């Protein structure tokens, strides 16, 4: 089973040269730590920055410079600031190449639920609903099962949806899966995890064809 850092590391391999990338809160934020230096990549944060840099050094925090997770950040040479309406304009018009976000549930046809547990927890959708409605390439980073051991990869989502048929890939602590026209396809397994383990932890129907390779880092 992968750690959160390893999930982020595996996802970083999906980031290509000259990509503009939006990283969600949680595991997706860690992806920035694993981008090879020879790639030119710019990170967008939907609260209004392109060219987001690493966290500031102690004592150099700026209250007017945060990311969408409300953490203090820095800006890199070539960065730009803009307002929230403009920010979602560039998201809806598909200028952002890759969106990586977390989820509570994903279904085998690419539906995602991430913002509400009726009667229990309501944090709001933030920008996730806008991102999943328009982004071309959406990767979900999440744990394969919840704390009770129940699958979060489902035939149908049970929680209120964030978006429909939008997720392209799921990278969990157990596997890499792709949403295809025929259904959810198992692409890779985590080191030491068998196909059987993955199928057992997955409520969705999984398409398993041929040998399933172990993830490479």
């Amino acid at each position, binding site marked *: 089973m992968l750690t959160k850092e390893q999930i982020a590391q595996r996802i970083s391999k999906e980031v290509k040269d000259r990509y503009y990338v939006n990283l969600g809160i949680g595991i997706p934020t860690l992806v920035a730590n694993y981008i090879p230096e020879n790639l030119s990549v710019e990170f967008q944060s939907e609260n209004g920055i392109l060219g987001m840099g690493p966290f500031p050094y102690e004592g150099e925090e700026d209250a007017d410079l*945060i990311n969408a997770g409300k953490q203090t950040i820095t800006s890199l040479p070539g960065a730009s600031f803009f307002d929230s309406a403009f920010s*979602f304009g560039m998201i*809806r018009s598909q200028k952002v190449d890759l969106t990586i976000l977390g989820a509570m549930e994903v279904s085998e046809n690419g539906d995602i639920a991430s913002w509400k547990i009726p009667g229990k927890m*309501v944090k709001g959708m933030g920008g996730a609903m806008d991102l999943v*409605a*328009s982004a071309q390439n959406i990767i979900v980073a999440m744990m394969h099962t919840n704390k009770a051991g129940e699958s979060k990869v489902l035939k149908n989502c049970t929680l209120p*949806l964030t978006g429909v048929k939008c997720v392209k890939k799921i990278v969990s602590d157990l596997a890499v899966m792709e949403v295809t026209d025929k259904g959810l396809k198992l692409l890779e397994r985590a080191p030491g995890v068998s196909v059987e383990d993955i199928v057992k932890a997955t409520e969705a129907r999984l398409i398993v064809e041929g040998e399933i390779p172990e993830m490479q880092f």
Partner: protein
Amino acid sequence: MIDKRVKNAKEAIQGIQSGMTVMLGGFGLCGIPENCINEMAASNLTDLTCISNNAGVDDFGLGLLLQKHQIKKMIASYVGENAEFERQMLSGELDVELTPQGTLAEKCRAAQAGIPAFYTPTGYGTEVAEGKEVKDFNGKPHILEHAYEADFSIVKAWKGDYSGNLIFKGTARNFNLPMAGAAKITIAEVEELVQPGELDPNEIHIPGIMVQRIFQGENYEKRIERVTTRKKES
């Protein structure tokens, strides 16, 4: 030059009445109009409808108004940092309209730009789309969203001049820009208020025509929600 100066937050919020709809700029605690919020929290205003991306934290920002039950309805995209908010919402004391962040921003921008409504792909197939008109464009379904109609808009800028021209700093531009001029009356509080001519017209983010009242705020706390740093490599 049309002089829009008012003395302070107390004078700036004159005319805001209980039951009105008020937009407030900021993202999290970044770029919130602290002076006006504090003044509203000290007032007897109640039954407000607030349009703001977030609802502050328990003891700062809009959280101050929530504590005193001054807000009847909250329109926001993300409210996860405020325990009192969640409690009031789940108990039904507070009416909440959760709106996707980009749609919230665009509903402000539409009001600012004189556009009554627009179609967006965001929220289609979710409960956000319930009861809304759906129309296909280029084979993709979109839902109809309406511009906000607010009585007051309160924004915070870095610099401003007497005529209401505004310049924002860093990611504090956020909702302050699309909310400026999006209500009947816009109040701007700024960290530095200067004479006309001191700001370079090339660098103005919001022209003064969008602002009716402006003042220089004081004692900005500029609280940071999540101070996150790295260690210097030795």
